[in-house]
């Protein structure tokens, strides 16, 4: 019989685990379910050590393992054709998807959530959200070239909203500006449903040459595992404090901040350092450290390469020497990367990191064995098959239930709302909408972000999509837009998700680019609520079907569950990002008119669709009925037309019609360059059989307004007819009259509109 031996350092070793199989372990406090704990015991054939338990608990968390969403996310990979995969270099499952854009160049892009940290500590939560997504992009071998952010806040007047708005905007501004990445767009929406669950999604995009692509893989035995960047500290440790206090007595600090703290300067240096390492060809594989820290990086690198690893945890450079091994494994300290470096390149690696004054330490090496061994000094504290930690976590098919409220919600149409009786009332409503926080000028936020750095920004807010030049030689570039309408998704998650896709697709098309790929960030309530799971099931199906119909693949994304306070979940908010490619960014189209006397055309058909609209919600506090119908065939025809017209240089300006309808779109296109317009709506009302309220505020999809120079009218109309896109001249641009003159409604002075539109957010915050 073996003699019981106490570990000299007091840590829980593999040997201990074998000798004390029945020791109570805090699996519940770490968020594991009993059957999950049992399956860890089965995998290992013994109880896990406390370090192993720490690793499994973070890697099997919803955040890292996608255990509730996996069965639905599969369809993004299944509902694809070979044609859709044509430009896809790296699909889902890697740090970020990679898309071929031609000329030997590629881009990688992804959107991720940082919702919960941003509510607890808005500044650091939002800042590290930007930092995390940028490292994902970097780890693909790409230079990050831009960021965007998708924000949802609570009711504008709620005092707590100000706390969150200030913190989040300051955090994004602080981190993104200091990293030197242009912020080229995003979304800001206010709704009381997000009061206790604000959404902070961050998107980043990077560019690379095809041959520079890097993957998070360790494939060669003997290669070194090197951790570099910031030191590991006690930040970002949530559950482990429980572990520490329950299992390890009173040594060391017990209260750990659960939100990470960002240092954008360290990340900027890390970016330049990594790019130089990539250039020198000294890195065989690379992984950023984000959620689950070293646990994630080591197990994923090994598992992805079908190899193993032997790691000495005492080699990790620490900010706080009192950290326990479990804490080191779980720490989410920012600005760290893990590289796989062939031994022969170690000297070159050291030279480059030393130049950038970046600290590093060799943790161990890759081994040709299906095992991840982690030692603490001379003691073995982890001995697991890497795949069981990284990829073979639990998968749940959670109960799904059609919501009890759904039928009543859909029956409660906006048709009962009283419509304006005269033009004065319509004009008042239009002014009320343009000065409401959801439609007012967002420059109080966007002016806090650097949009110029790098010198390649071709379009940024307030245009519909952001656009970045990738090749300075040829002008080849990409456009990006993101959208999600939570109200529509609440009314119908399937149709709402398709609408988010349609709108982002359209917003890319209006810039003159050709949509090519999709990313998403799926923000939902608790997966343990069957009604939320139904929303999730519907939304993912809608998005996957929509992508298949449009012929553009999902390249990656992120799921954020548990966005709910008590029993109240947020509106399902699947943020969809669409990436487009444009041969020459010089052909881009802005969202407002600038020349005098150009014709203004409305493309597409308007239906009486006011359910879920800004008119219903913001003016009448009503949300019910059915969201506007999405017809992706029409969206595709419209996008093709816009691209054709852009190629021929026929369009001066193009603006998507979405929330607030045609009325808001006209005002925005006029405010863009402070050039007015004269408009008439009678023909539209007659053609599409609408009353004035529907003509002004309907949110029918597949619609865009464009301005076209008179000399190009014939060509443009012929193009529309040839492609079967409904076209109607509804006005002319007017530089002389500083007004938007809508015949039969009102003549609104630009100065008056601007006065109502600017300063709203500054006034609130």
């Amino acid at each position, binding site marked *: 019989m073996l003699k019981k031996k106490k570990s000299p350092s007091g840590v829980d070793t593999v040997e201990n685990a074998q000798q004390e199989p029945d020791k109570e372990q805090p699996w519940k406090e770490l968020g594991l379910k009993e059957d999950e704990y049992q399956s860890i015991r089965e995998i290992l054939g013994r109880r896990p050590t406390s370090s192993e338990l720490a690793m499994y608990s973070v890697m099997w968390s919803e955040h890292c393992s996608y255990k509730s969403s996996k069965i639905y996310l599969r369809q993004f990979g299944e509902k694809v054709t070979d044609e859709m995969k044509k430009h896809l270099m790296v699909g889902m499952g890697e740090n970020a998807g990679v898309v071929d854009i031609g000329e030997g160049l590629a881009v990688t892009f992804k959107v991720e959530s940082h919702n919960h940290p941003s509510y607890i500590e808005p500044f650091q939560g939002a800042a590290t959200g930007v930092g995390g997504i940028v490292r994902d992009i970097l780890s693909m071998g790409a230079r990050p070239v831009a960021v965007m952010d998708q924000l949802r806040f609570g009711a504008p007047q709620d005092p707590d909203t100000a706390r969150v708005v200030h913190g989040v905007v300051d955090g994004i501004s602080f981190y993104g500006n200091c990293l030197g990445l242009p912020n080229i767009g995003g979304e800001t929406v206010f709704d009381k449903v997000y009061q206790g669950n604000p959404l902070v999604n961050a998107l980043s995009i990077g560019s690379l040459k095809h041959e520079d692509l890097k993957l998070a893989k360790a494939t060669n035995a003997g290669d070194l595992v090197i951790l570099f960047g910031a030191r590991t500290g006690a930040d970002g440790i949530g559950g482990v404090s429980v572990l520490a206090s329950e299992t390890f007595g009173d040594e060391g600090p017990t209260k750990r901040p659960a939100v990470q703290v960002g240092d954008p300067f*360290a990340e900027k240096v890390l970016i330049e350092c990594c790019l130089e390492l990539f250039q020198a060809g000294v890195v065989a594989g690379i992984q950023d450290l984000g959620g689950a820290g070293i646990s994630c990086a080591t197990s994923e690198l090994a598992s992805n390469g079908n190899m193993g690893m032997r790691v000495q945890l005492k080699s990790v450079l620490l900010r706080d020497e009192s950290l326990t091994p479990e804490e080191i494994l779980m720490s989410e300290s920012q600005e760290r990367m893990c590289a796989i470096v062939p031994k022969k390149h170690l000297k070159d690696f050291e030279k480059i990191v030393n130049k950038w004054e970046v600290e590093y330490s060799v943790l161990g090496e890759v081994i040709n064995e299906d095992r991840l061994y982690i030692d603490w000094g001379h003691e073995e504290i982890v001995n697991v098959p890497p795949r069981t930690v990284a990829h073979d976590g639990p998968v749940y098919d959670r109960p799904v239930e059609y919501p009890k409220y759904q039928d009543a919600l859909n029956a409660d149409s906006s048709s009962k709302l009283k419509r304006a009786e005269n033009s004065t009332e319509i004009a008042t409503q239009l002014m009320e909408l343009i000065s409401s926080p959801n439609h007012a000028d967002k420059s109080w936020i966007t002016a806090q972000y650097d949009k110029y750095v790098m*010198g390649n*920004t071709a379009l940024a807010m307030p245009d519909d999509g952001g656009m970045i030049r990738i090749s300075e030689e040829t002008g080849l570039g990409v456009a990006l837009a993101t959208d999600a309408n939570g109200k529509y998704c609440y009314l119908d998650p399937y149709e709402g998700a398709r609408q988010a896709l349609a709108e982002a697709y359209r917003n890319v098309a209006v810039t003159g680019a050709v949509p090519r790929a999709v990313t998403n960030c799926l923000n939902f309530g608790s997966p343990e609520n069957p009604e939320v799971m139904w929303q999730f099931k519907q939304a993912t199906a809608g998005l996957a079907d929509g992508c298949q119909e449009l012929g553009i693949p999902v390249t990656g994304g992120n799921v954020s569950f548990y966005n709910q306070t008590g029993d109240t979940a947020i509106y399902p908010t699947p943020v969809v990002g669409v990436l487009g490619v444009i041969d020459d960014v*010089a052909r881009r189209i802005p969202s407002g008119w600038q020349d005098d006397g150009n014709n203004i055309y409305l493309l597409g058909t308007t239906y009486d669709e006011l359910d879920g609209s800004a008119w219903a919600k913001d003016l009448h506090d009503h949300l019910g009925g059915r969201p506007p119908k999405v017809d992706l065939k029409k969206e595709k025809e419209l996008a093709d037309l816009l691209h054709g017209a852009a190629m021929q240089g026929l369009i001066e300006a193009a603006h998507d019609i979405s929330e607030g309808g045609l009325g808001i779109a006209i005002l925005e296109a006029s405010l863009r360059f402070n050039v007015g317009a004269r408009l008439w709506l009678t023909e539209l009302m007659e053609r599409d059989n609408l009353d004035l309220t529907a003509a002004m505020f309907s949110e029918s999809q597949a619609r865009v307004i464009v301005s076209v120079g008179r000399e190009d009218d014939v060509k443009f109309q012929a193009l529309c007819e040839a492609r079967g896109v409904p076209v109607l001249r509804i006005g002319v641009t007017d530089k002389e009259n500083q007004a938007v003159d809508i015949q039969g409604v009102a003549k609104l002075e630009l100065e008056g509109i601007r006065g109502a539109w600017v300063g709203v957010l500054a006034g609130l915050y």
Partner: protein
Amino acid sequence: MRIGVITYPGTLDDRDAERAIRLAGGTPVPLWHADDDLKKVDAVVLPGGFSYGDYLRCGAIAAKAPATKEVIKKAQQGLPVLGICNGFQVLVESHLLPGGLIRNEHQHFICRDQKLKVENNQTAWTNLFEKDEEITIPLKNGEGGYIATQDTLKMLEEENRVVFRYLEINPNGSMNDIAGLTNERGNVVGLMPHPEHAVEPGFGPDTPVATRSGIDGLKFFQSALKALVNS
């Protein structure tokens, strides 16, 4: 003509400054903060960014870098030096220009297309502008509020050393609306706004003619090339 651009850790607009020099017809030469060899350049640009994170007073550490020390020495002998944003802060911290730069009055970072008035067209970096010319270039800073003692302000005004003044809006609370300064000799110029972001049609500020077509910043770099040819 070879114009050096120094990269400190945390510098962001170095590649933009190099592009601007190229578009103006010069040859950009990358310089490294830790290296006191200025590679025989004919002029130097200290670009924008957050050198060393700017966690101390902005530009304070960069002012002590080996490359900066060399720049200070050469600037005193007449080398044309342009400090943009963080570069302006470095020039102030190096005492090549007087005064200081503090947190914007409204406490926020601000990025906007900024109108400026050219007050002095006799410097190495502004000789192609008309006096009192109005130009628009991007501004983006968090700590751009210019401050100085009353005596210093008086001296700057009397000696015509205010090169640029903010027009229409003072975006950061700078005293006397000061956006940029020069030294006594006129070879060193520092300003908060970013001329290197207004050098290429399509990527600059909006103009009344077309979206993002402003290139008022190009003349800064062309001026330096002209000054070098004439010297």
